[in-house]
């Protein structure tokens, strides 16, 4: 392994470790949160950071640190679930379109083109608006355009390998289409699509937080970074910490996951 590859590998490991820490923090948020994130306290409204409330308190006297931690679970879990669902739908649609072709392929790809013609956030705001508030609505709104990137990627890779001799050999052996898709095609196209999934995590997180910030995502009082920023921005001059910490958490998390996606992509490129 040459020096550059070693460096890239180290980059991947560092990014993965950071992302791992964030995910563990989010998973354990219920246990490590110092206070009840939903308990209001009229005596502690908008108190600055202190030993008892490390990130201060918000307009209702709730512990910002606890809310950031619990909010991490909401944001990260929603992001992962959404990316996973888009990944599964996208890869299935892409493989079927690429492998069988024909009218279904044409129709699905034109639908995908149509989705891609609009900026993702604009479609998401419109759809989330129609569906009303709630995390589920926000996820559907983002997912409507998200599967297309997976589908197109999976389709193009399927097209490039479906005439390889080993696929023909499997056909000549009399293997069925679904079996060939599952055993020969999917494992061979998984890598680029998985890397795409990694790079989508950051964008999705911005999407979910963004919709929540606009009031189209998570509904109060549930803790979520975007909605926390939205709530607290009204009194940002009095209690900036209530905006600052969730905003910092969002930025750091997005940077870490984008960095991870980029690092993995660079590493794989160097490998080829």
């Amino acid at each position, binding site marked *: 392994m040459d020096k550059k590859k070693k460096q890239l590998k180290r980059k991947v490991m560092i990014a993965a470790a950071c992302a791992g820490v964030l995910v563990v923090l989010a998973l354990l948020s219920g246990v490590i949160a110092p206070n009840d994130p939903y308990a209001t306290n009229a005596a502690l409204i908008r108190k600055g950071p202190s030993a008892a409330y490390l990130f201060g308190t918000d307009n209702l006297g709730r512990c910002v640190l606890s809310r950031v931690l619990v909010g991490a679970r909401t944001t990260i879990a929603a992001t992962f679930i959404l990316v996973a669902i888009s990944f599964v739908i996208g890869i299935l649609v892409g493989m079927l379109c690429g492998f069988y072709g024909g009218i279904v392929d044409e129709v699905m790809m034109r639908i995908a083109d149509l989705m891609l013609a609009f900026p993702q956030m604009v479609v998401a705001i419109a759809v989330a608006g129609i569906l009303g508030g709630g995390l589920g609505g926000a996820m559907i709104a983002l997912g409507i355009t998200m599967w297309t990137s997976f589908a197109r990627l999976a389709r193009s890779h399927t097209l490039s390998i479906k005439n390889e001799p080993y696929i023909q050999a499997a056909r000549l052996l009399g*293997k069925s289409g679904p079996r060939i898709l599952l055993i020969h095609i999917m494992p061979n196209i998984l890598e680029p699509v998985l890397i795409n999934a990694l790079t989508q995590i950051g964008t999705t997180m911005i999407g979910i937080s963004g919709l929540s910030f606009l009031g189209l995502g998570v509904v109060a009082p549930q803790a979520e970074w975007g909605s926390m920023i939205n709530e607290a921005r009204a009194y940002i001059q009095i209690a900036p910490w209530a905006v600052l910490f969730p905003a910092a958490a969002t930025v750091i998390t997005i940077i870490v996951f984008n960095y991870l996606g980029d690092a993995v992509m660079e590493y794989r490129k160097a490998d080829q």
Partner: protein
Amino acid sequence: MSEALLQIKQLNASYDGDTDVIRDVCFELTPGEIICIVGESGSGKSTLIKAIHGMSDLIISKGQILFDGRDLTHMKGNPRRELLGTEIGLIPQDPAASFNPIRRFDVQLKEALASHSRKDEGKAAEILEKMGMPDSRAVLHNRPFEVSGGMNQRIAIAAAMMFAPRLLLCDEATSALDVTTAGSVVDELLRIRKEQGTAILMVTHHLGIAKRMADQIGIMKNGKIVEYGNVRQIFEAPSHEYTRNLIRDVPRLKR
């Protein structure tokens, strides 16, 4: 002369049903014989192999392919499938693409065996050992991307020979390999012919390979066989202009 194993009669084939990629191809292959079809890229060599092997995207517009008296011309589905592998083996052009790159060789070979309802899993390892590859079982535990091109091609030969077919089709089986590896692959094919009497139809653009292994050589140009004869005829007294050019263009070391 013994009875022909493979007869190609006036064969015309196309991909689109309109333009014939190969035209009026005729020759006969007897058991144990090696025929090399030599020609430049796009001359229709691989199409000929596909026509005999029965890849599904080819349309045979005229002519006949007879294998051991059976008409293969339009044979499809299960009857064809039963012949492939067991009676007719294929060594593809690109060794790296002939296996699924991320599945273990033994798993893939087992699948091929199972599709013909056979279970002799040690067979491929045995063939590899005969090719001078000790520890062949360990080799078969690898995945294709983990081994070299030459190794891949040897395993492809072993896979093709698992059922001891009577006819082996080689589609540029050596062109993706370096000269030394190509040489040893040719040696393997010659040994297989000697030991098992397998007839081999090899298409190649490499005259040197043809000279070394063939009994008969066909020179193919623009979908037609322009000259056909035994090795001596072709190399010593080529009658067609194109053949003379081909022989002349083989690079030689000047002293």
